[in-house]
């Protein structure tokens, strides 16, 4: 449906840009890495939404996944933080400039191991950003060690060592911390990923996307629930996700029996076409129960797990002016001489 926005001359989107205008540097990841597929989905989502690339801030930590912001949106500023702390950097930059569209890409190690505490606090603050975890159950860049989302019982490559811990469920923790847009997907399900990203980018707060993204080099073996084959075979979409941006309203009749509609704060619409499940993503306890069930039996549900568009992002909570703090003029940021004198007098 949303492909409608592409009906512009020569593949131009609504602001006249081509898909190629959303590309980045050449990827240096392994051939076949799930992360590259997500990069493509981000590029397409931004193109389809007609996002102004120069208005985007790309944020990441350290890891193979965290390298990817370099591989999309060349015209957007990007930053590699230190390992696990993109959350803090993103919080600061989103306060400095509330007009930026924030896309964060992290890994499971970056977010759920070293970055867990800071990530959860960022989620709690609800800064406005799309936060993608490219979840491969391992540390790709340091050569395949277990991460906090590694499968329980998985064997170390070439070693006896067995992972004994339950994988951390990023979605469940995000929901518990008050996140109001939580999705799970699979890098190979490019359609779903693209649409979830589009929806996420229109969410008025932190949107967490936990995307299984196979590490074809270190965690693609049989038995891994993060392998390409496993994800392909086991993905069980809760619904078919589509996104209709506010600027492109389409007057199709969505039958409530077959569709769930979620209206975003800006008038955009997420449509969830029912598949085998009858799933309501607005019910928090239901979402938690689903995640617990999935964790218990290794089920790989994908789609929009939890969504409550009535969300107050941090900048609004803080009642900050709409224009960027970064570029406020001295006349605004430095109080007057009268105030100065008044202050000095108070200490006398």
């Amino acid at each position, binding site marked *: 449906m949303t492909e409608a926005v592409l009906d512009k001359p020569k593949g131009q989107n609504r602001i006249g840009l081509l898909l190629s205008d959303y590309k980045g540097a050449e990827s240096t990841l392994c051939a076949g890495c799930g992360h590259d597929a997500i990069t493509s989905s981000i590029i397409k989502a931004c193109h389809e939404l007609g996002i102004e690339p120069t208005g985007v801030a790309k944020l990441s930590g350290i890891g193979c996944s965290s390298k990817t912001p370099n591989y999309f949106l060349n015209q957007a*500023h*990007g*930053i590699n933080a230190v390992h696990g702390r993109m959350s803090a950097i993103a919080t600061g*930059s989103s*306060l*400095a400039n509330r007009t930026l569209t924030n896309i964060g890409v992290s890994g499971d190690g970056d977010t759920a191991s070293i970055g867990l505490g800071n990530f959860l*606090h960022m989620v709690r603050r609800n800064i406005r950003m799309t936060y993608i975890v490219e979840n491969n159950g391992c540390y790709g860049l340091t050569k395949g060690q277990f991460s906090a989302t590694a499968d329980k019982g998985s064997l170390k490559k070439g070693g006896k060592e067995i992972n004994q811990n339950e994988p951390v469920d990023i979605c469940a923790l995000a929901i518990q911390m008050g996140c109001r847009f939580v999705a799970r997907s699979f890098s190979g399900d490019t359609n779903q990923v693209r649409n979830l990203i589009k929806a996420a980018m229109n969410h008025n707060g932190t949107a967490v996307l936990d995307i299984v993204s196979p590490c074809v080099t270190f965690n693609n073996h049989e038995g891994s629930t993060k392998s390409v084959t496993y994800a392909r075979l086991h993905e069980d979409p809760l619904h078919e996700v589509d996104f209709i941006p506010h600027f492109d309203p389409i007057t199709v009749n969505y039958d409530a029996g077959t569709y769930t509609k979620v209206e975003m704060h800006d008038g955009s619409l997420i449509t969830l076409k029912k598949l085998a499940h009858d799933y309501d993503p607005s019910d928090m306890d239901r979402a938690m129960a689903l995640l617990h069930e999935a964790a218990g039996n290794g089920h790989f549900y994908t789609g929009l797990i939890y969504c409550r568009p009535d969300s107050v992002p941090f900048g609004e909570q803080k009642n900050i*002016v709409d224009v960027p703090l*970064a570029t406020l003029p001295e006349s605004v940021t430095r109080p007057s001489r009268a105030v100065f004198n008044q202050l000095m007098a108070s200490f006398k």
Partner: protein
Amino acid sequence: MPPTMTATEALVEELQDRPVVNDVVINVATVNGSGSQSANFILLRALFSMGIPVSGKNLFPSNIEGLPTWFTIRANEDGWLAQRARTDVVIAMNARTVAEDVAQVHPGGILIINEALKAHATRDDILTYVVPYGEIVKQVCEDTRLRKKIVNVIYTGVVARLLGIEMDAIDAAIDHQFGGKPKAIKMNRDAAQAGYDWAGENLEAQNRYRVQRSNKTDGKMIIEGNEATAIGMLFGGVTVAAWYPITPSSSVCEYLTGYMEKYRHDAETGKATYAIVQAEDEIASIGMVLGAGWAGARAFTATSGPGISLMSEMTGLSYFAEIPAVIVDVQRMGPSTGLPTRTCQGDIAKTYQLSHGDCKHVLLIPGNVGECYEFAMEALELAEQLQTMIFLMSDLDLGMNKWMADPFNPPSKPIGRGKVLDAKDLERLGGFQRYGDVDGDGIGYRTLPGTPNNKAAYFTRGTGHNAKAEYTEKAADWKTNMDRLSHKFETARKLVPASIVHETDAATVGVLAYGSSDDAVQEARHILQERHGVKTDYIRVRALPYPADVRAFIERHPVVYVVDQNRDAQMATILRGELFDLSGKIRSIRHYDGMPLDADTVVQQLLHQESR
């Protein structure tokens, strides 16, 4: 080498036939959480409003309620306001410490002791006054719960009577302290008056220490360093602050929050033109500062030792990716959790090279509250100008104690935002190199995220990059970039505040100090000259990398004593390591017991080394 009485002082002591006027150290020993703090401030301010220079140092425990606390007031006509070991007057209110408090009174001094503790008043070489606070307080305060707090105010009246502090001054101080709360003002005035009256009726007057009106505080003010820092940030146009509570730095951001709420909301919309975030930890606070700085905001955090350690990694990112940021380090006694409520200059060497790998940082080191204010502004300024981390190195003594000062100078120069290219610049230039050195000062041009020009973007990273900000692992690229950063550091050396140099005729001995040591060093020089005939020249370093004047000063002197408030002679070691051709001249004076530096320590260590 604990400071002991010099021969000269002992002599002065014995001549107790005429009073020492406007030169007294009063130490109030109480229990924290007991409300004694406001009584002490009243005493301080009363002396101040009588025109006598004063300082107030609070020695408090790292807990909230019930442990011993001391507040030392030094009043000195000549303006010597540093810590002084000799205590003239002790007000003993705390049963737990009364023995040591009594012992602390200098021979010939005065002890004002709670009647409940009078068993300890056994010294006959001092004047002792026993005060039945419990009874007096009953007369002025009905509410038994309030008595615990108000009882302390009574001693202000007693001291006033004994030393000659005017009750008008006490009342004015009470008004200042409880500004706008008439009920509190009344109650406190009554309590002070009750003490005054009781003392008048029951205590024999003394003639050892007296105060009298002077004019040495005209136009001056009293302020804490942390509040001064907050004011500097306010007028420095800070827009983002992120912090995590830690003694003794918390009040920087707490004061700032108050000011921002008052002065930095848009008049029309009521919206905030700033964001202050209490982060979940120090890694997050410095991360937020870097994020904000990257996006173009003037941002800082305030912390102390443990926070500095936690901020190490991000400091390296700031240095290497060249992201403006400011950390206010209100130093406390370390290592580790250390003594959170004691002062130290223990982080100087640490912050100077904080983080792994080759990196060096710019430190601004205020020596008084005025500089806390000025350097806060300057830190924000330099951070953007140099595109790097700037440390503002305060300490607990400076930050949390009460200092007398001249009113600050209003901001004198416009806020500069450093080398930032906007969309128009880019159109004109057709592009830019983020890490190029166009101007030969080692500083590249940057753009801010959101700049509406498709040549604006670059990728910021802590990994190897070339002039265009592209990833590279090439040996030559790495070295070029690191050398440029060294060059930038030399630019910083030229931009930081010059040292303050005091030179005397014919002095051969040099003294180099920094930060809160200033008062004690100044007084030490005075003592050295007056009592020991040793003339000294003095350079107060206000930044690292130290400006060129430091080398020149050391070159001009055969020997220079470097005063460090830390065990490891951190500044002396830095100077020896870098000005190594001069290091034979550098001697070290160290003080590291948690107390603010006093003049005697400097005098004695210097004389000791001179005599060798």
